[in-house]
């Protein structure tokens, strides 16, 4: 328990000394991705092997430093999940990829005992071997600020967080700055909400600080509902204290004593790490009553979601914390005035809070050096889809899509052509090759009718049908519509029906106009952001890929060859040798013929499952 500022400072020095002594470290990634690849077993095996070899290893930061110890840690997500399980070796900064249990002996014998690299575990790209993590192209082109410690520290240790300067910003805010000064720094930094809207954070805090009603609340939105995004998950799992510190600073700034973190139910590991982090901070006296003798009280509670996308919307989220159905309400009044339990509330996203300590520590001016004039700082994106390097990345605001997809993402998977990227999830829109050089920041994207949203970037290649993508998102939104307002409840259903019939080859002349008309109505009349943005993917795919819609409707043809109901499969008689393999695999008996003669497919019976295509040894079965 630390009761004063001096005690925190001496604890920090002790932690720094301990971290310095423990310069040799093995960090095993314990993020969701690597754990599913078996990283916890690897961790246990490393521990056993090292102990058997007599290499002293320490799983927790040892406060009585001795130089020959090796730290064996579980870290948070590195964002390079596809190459996992990942193991990082320090001080060299080596990254071992796709590590398996079978590699453990060699890692201990060679790397730990002799300091040699196990070259076959290093990352390779185009024949080149990259030993150091920071040199890998995926990382080299990134600017990791918010994610800087994810993967590099033990996410379950408050001491490690303190050893890298953690809670210094909170200390500064608590003792050296007035509420006004904190808010001024946040305002001057130009920080904008990372949860989707890009609302200036400083302005939000100012409004809450001004309210007379008490108590006030700080709420962190960790609902991360956009399917295809996992930035917030990685922060909560990999560096939970950073976000908590951000919330505490918000508490000091607006005069709140309670904070709530709303985490979606699908993130059990994030809940576990956050609970642990909160318990540690409480035990140390950084949360609780009269923190560090300052008179400031602050507690943090965790609420788990229960599977409703709409709960990411501010007023629905607070309703859900109150134990109600998570339905949005009409605004105004806004959350800053009448938020949680009807009291003034600061509601920010996970990544937004994670930016706060940096701003307070380094100052607004320093923070603005990265990013663009109107969108300062960095942004984390989840890069997924048909791309070589999927994962979590962080780049300065204003980086172009081309740099993200081709330099960091390594280009298209399987050599296919780039077609489009969906940004902003079900509320966003798509961008095509014409926008590859567009800077990714709030305002540039708004101009072309897209939005940063939460930061999900789903890359699609030429085999992806854009009408089907629009149908997919509309299906999602329609499912998640809470049903409170008519435009969203009924409108999304009608739009979904139209899209379903188009991809089934039953589209009618005039459907495109009908979609656009419905989109216009819903956008202008829906109650909350879910409905207002629901038509985004449809409108933007029509804008860029109208010809694909027309081909589906008029020619009953899917140009990308993706829509199963529109596939036409036939056997090329010139290539068919009549081996009968295809007729045997066909689940509906649609293929017939005489041995050694070309076979034929009965289009009436064919369900277009495509099973025959893969089995033909002569590549005689084709679809168009």
């Amino acid at each position: 328990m630390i009761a004063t500022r001096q005690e925190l400072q001496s604890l920090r020095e002790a932690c720094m000394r301990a971290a310095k002594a423990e310069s040799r470290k093995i960090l095993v990634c314990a993020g969701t991705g690597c754990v599913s690849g078996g990283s916890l077993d690897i961790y246990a095996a490393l521990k056993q092997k090292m102990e058997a070899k007599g290499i002293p290893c320490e799983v927790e930061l040892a406060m009585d430093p001795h130089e020959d110890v090796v730290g064996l840690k579980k870290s948070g997500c590195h964002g390079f999940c596809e190459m996992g399980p990942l193991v990082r070796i320090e001080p060299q900064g080596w990254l071992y990829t796709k590590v398996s249990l079978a590699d453990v002996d060699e890692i201990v014998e060679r790397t730990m005992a002799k300091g040699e690299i196990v070259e076959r575990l290093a990352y390779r790209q185009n024949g080149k071997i990259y030993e150091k993590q920071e040199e890998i192209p995926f990382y080299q082109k990134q600017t990791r600020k918010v994610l800087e410690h994810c993967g590099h520290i033990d996410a379950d240790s408050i001491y490690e967080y303190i050893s890298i300067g953690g809670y210094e910003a909170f200390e500064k805010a608590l003792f050296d700055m007035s509420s006004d000064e904190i808010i001024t720094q946040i305002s001057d930094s130009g920080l904008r909400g990372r949860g989707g809207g890009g609302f200036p954070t400083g302005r939000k805090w100012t409004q809450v600080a001004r309210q007379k009603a008490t108590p006030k609340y700080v709420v962190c939105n960790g609902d991360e509902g956009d399917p295809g995004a996992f930035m917030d998950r990685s922060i909560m799992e990999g560096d939970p204290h950073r976000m908590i510190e951000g919330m505490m600073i918000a508490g000091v700034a607006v005069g709140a004593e309670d904070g709530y973190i709303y985490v979606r139910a699908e993130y059990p590991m994030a809940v576990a790490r956050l609970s642990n982090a909160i318990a540690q901070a409480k035990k140390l006296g950084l949360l609780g009553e009269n923190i560090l003798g300052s008179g400031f009280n602050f507690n943090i509670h965790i609420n788990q979601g229960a599977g409703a996308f709409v709960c990411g919307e501010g007023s629905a989220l607070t309703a859900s914390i109150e134990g109600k159905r998570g339905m949005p309400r009409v605004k105004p009044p806004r959350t800053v005035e009448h938020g949680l339990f009807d009291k003034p509330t600061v509601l920010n996203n996970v990544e937004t809070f994670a930016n706060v300590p940096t701003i307070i520590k380094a100052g607004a001016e320093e923070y603005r050096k990265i990013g663009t004039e109107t969108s300062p700082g960095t942004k984390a994106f989840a890069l997924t889809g048909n791309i070589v390097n999927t994962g979590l990345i962080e780049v300065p605001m204003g980086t172009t899509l081309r740099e993200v997809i081709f330099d960091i993402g390594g280009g298209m998977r399987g050599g296919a052509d780039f077609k489009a990227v969906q940004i902003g999830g079900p509320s966003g829109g798509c961008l095509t090759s014409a926008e590859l050089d567009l800077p990714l920041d709030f305002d540039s994207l708004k101009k072309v009718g897209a939005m940063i949203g939460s930061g999900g970037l789903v890359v699609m290649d030429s085999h992806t049908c854009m009408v089907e993508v629009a149908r997919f998102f509309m299906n999602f939104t329609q499912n998640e519509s809470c049903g409170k307002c008519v435009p969203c409840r009924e409108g999304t259903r009608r739009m979904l029906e139209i899209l379903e019939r188009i991809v089934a080859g039953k589209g009618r002349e005039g459907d495109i106009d009908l979609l656009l008309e419905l989109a216009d109505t819903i956008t202008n009349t829906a109650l909350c952001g879910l409905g207002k943005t629901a038509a985004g993917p449809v409108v933007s795919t029509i804008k860029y890929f109208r010809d694909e819609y027309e081909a589906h409707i008029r020619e009953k043809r899917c140009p990308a060859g993706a829509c199963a109901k529109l596939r036409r499969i036939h056997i090329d008689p010139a290539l068919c040798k009549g081996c009968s393999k295809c007729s045997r695999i066909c689940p509906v008996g649609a293929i017939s013929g005489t041995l050694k003669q070309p076979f034929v497919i009965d289009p009436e019976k064919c369900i277009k499952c495509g099973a025959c295509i893969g089995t033909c040894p002569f590549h005689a079965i084709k679809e168009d």
Partner: protein
Amino acid sequence: MNTQELYQKTDAILARCGTEERSMIAVLQAVQEEYAYLPREVFPYLSQKMGLSEAHIYGVATFYENFSLEPKGKYVIKVCDGTACHVRKSIPILEKLRSELGLAEGRKTTDDQMFTVETVSCLGACGLAPALTVNGKVHPSMTPDKAVELIETLRREEA
């Protein structure tokens, strides 16, 4: 349903989570944790203890996707159909699982109460798409064939 036991367990949950309205979701989650679904007998009991109408509690329980009013199988398989998994072909995996287990859109649990197959809209494991979970454990980079293998392994373990 052994209601006596249900009431006892619910009392313990209420003692831990509190009986105010704000504890509603946590309470329902804890009951579901025990039983893997919300037994109907819990609603009148909660109504009495929490001072809220049954209809109100039922309203909350049915609003959220994760609450189930029906018992689930021993193995709950959630196939991710989030964007990243969808573009990397998650639907064939779902279809394969359903056909393997004789399930369909409206029929989620096998008759022997062994398997439940559902979809989920993102597990946050998009880097490993397509993904699915079995009782919460993430299985990365799935294919229809791997999914069938998984079922077979689980069946073997049961036998």
